């Protein structure tokens, strides 16, 4: 059952491709999962047309949260913000390609929650953002 930790996840965790900080950034948000201390910070640069030009994350935490953030940044490059808003929990699960229990789901969805709170310009990130 080691395929649980698909190689993709371990690989992205150890060799992230979208780690970093954009300064200045058009959209910036951060939050953490108090259950485990996972932390995700996201910076976006967005064109006048609403298209994501650059997206990077910083963070610490478990393989699932960090790999998920890395894959999510990759996914939204070139996407319109309206589409970003539509990314669902299921999209993240499909992206990771694994099944997750309720606790790990929070790890997996942390980056999406941070991303959406930033895109919507909210003061605080709520779990409601990532519930289907």
């Amino acid at each position, binding site marked *: 059952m080691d395929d649980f930790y698909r190689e993709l996840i371990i690989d992205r965790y150890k060799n992230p491709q979208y780690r970093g900080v954009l300064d200045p950034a058009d959209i910036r948000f951060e939050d953490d999962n*108090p*259950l485990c201390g996972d932390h995700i910070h996201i910076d976006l640069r967005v064109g006048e047309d609403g298209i994501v030009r650059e997206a990077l994350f910083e963070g610490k935490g478990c393989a699932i949260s960090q790999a998920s953030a890395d894959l999510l940044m990759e996914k939204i490059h070139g996407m319109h913000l309206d589409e970003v808003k539509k990314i669902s929990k299921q999209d993240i699960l499909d992206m990771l390609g694994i099944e997750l*229990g*309720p*606790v*790990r789901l929070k790890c997996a969805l942390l980056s999406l929650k941070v991303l959406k709170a930033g895109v919507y310009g909210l003061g605080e990130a*709520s*779990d409601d953002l990532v519930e289907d």
Partner: protein
Amino acid sequence: MMTGQVQSTPLNLEKIRDDFPVLRRQVRPGVSLVYLDSTATSQKPTMVIEAMDRYYRQSNANIHRGIHVLAEEATAAYEEAREKVQKFIHAPSSRQVIFTRNTTEAINLVAYSWGFSQLKSGDLILLTEMEHHSNLVPWYLLAERIGLRLEFVSVTEDGLLDQSDFERKLELKPKLFAFTHMSNVVGTINPAKDMIAKAHQAGAVALLDGAQSVPHFCVNVQELDVDFLAFSGHKMCGPTGIGVLYGKKELLEKMPPFLGGGDMIKRVTLGSFKPNELPYKFEAGTPAIAEAIGLGAAVDYLSGIGMDAIAQHEHVLVRYALERLAEIPNLRVFGPSADKKGGVISFVMSGVHAHDVSQILDQYGVAIRAGHHCAMPLHEKFQIPATARASFYLYNTFEEIDRLVEAIYRVKDIFGV
């Protein structure tokens, strides 16, 4: 007088009774149980007992924080129970369903959290004379602490809330109107929707004590537009140790935490903390996990049978019981006529104290309750220290009412009244 057999009910009683193991019990050799005390607590179907049993034998773990299989199964089952309850009371979101120990704790939660933070000295709370102590004492405690005024809607001779007194007292501009949906003594079903609307018009928040309504008929929080609803699992075929507070989101979100501890926090440092989101903000410490799962099973059970059919069954039962009790000389029934009430009948017999009635009935296997039923003010109003109370639920039969009546005649013999 008709006998039980000719009455009709929408329920398949034989099948239902089979679901409740305790109903097969003989309380003494040769004396089978007639359980007429469901208002105090209901019996539990096998399905509920087994749901908890299974949880302990297969999936027992602490929830929310665990990553292993058991913890995930337990968490999923606990949260699924919350969703079942949500649907059962037609709440907009499961986040508005907070698990407590019982109705009492749910009301105390509102008093301590909402009351303490939103009310101030001189504010008025409107209650009624027919409340259970659980919807009185929490407000007395709060009133004492912060200096509130209390008013009580009168109860009429026949056990109804006096609606013109209610309207007069609303003019005093109460901040809260807390009242019972159904009386646990006289069985009166109060016109909650209408009264809540009037309370809102007067600017009051409305709390409904649903301890006796949620188990017995369909309660729809959105249709009622109620602000808070409290009820207990053990009265609705569920286990002890679990109850529910429903609240409107705006209200719950504004409220400070009640109990502090694990699970209700997002973050804790030395000296400060950040509360968690709803509903966890109000669920401190390891919750009653097995009991929530049991309540979920109870909700499934009741829904499977249908709340409307259950209400209808209790209605024909209580009508039959009232008719049969009316035959008995020197027996006085309190409360309104059958069309205004649920399956609860409280009575007194001249010359025999309610405790003695109950004790002798017990000799015949008939379990009723005697006392003030945690509603002393209502008993004071009626100027009696105690009543005998028979109450019905989905598993009760017409024959059981016949046995109640028979046993009451034996009481009369023994006491020579």
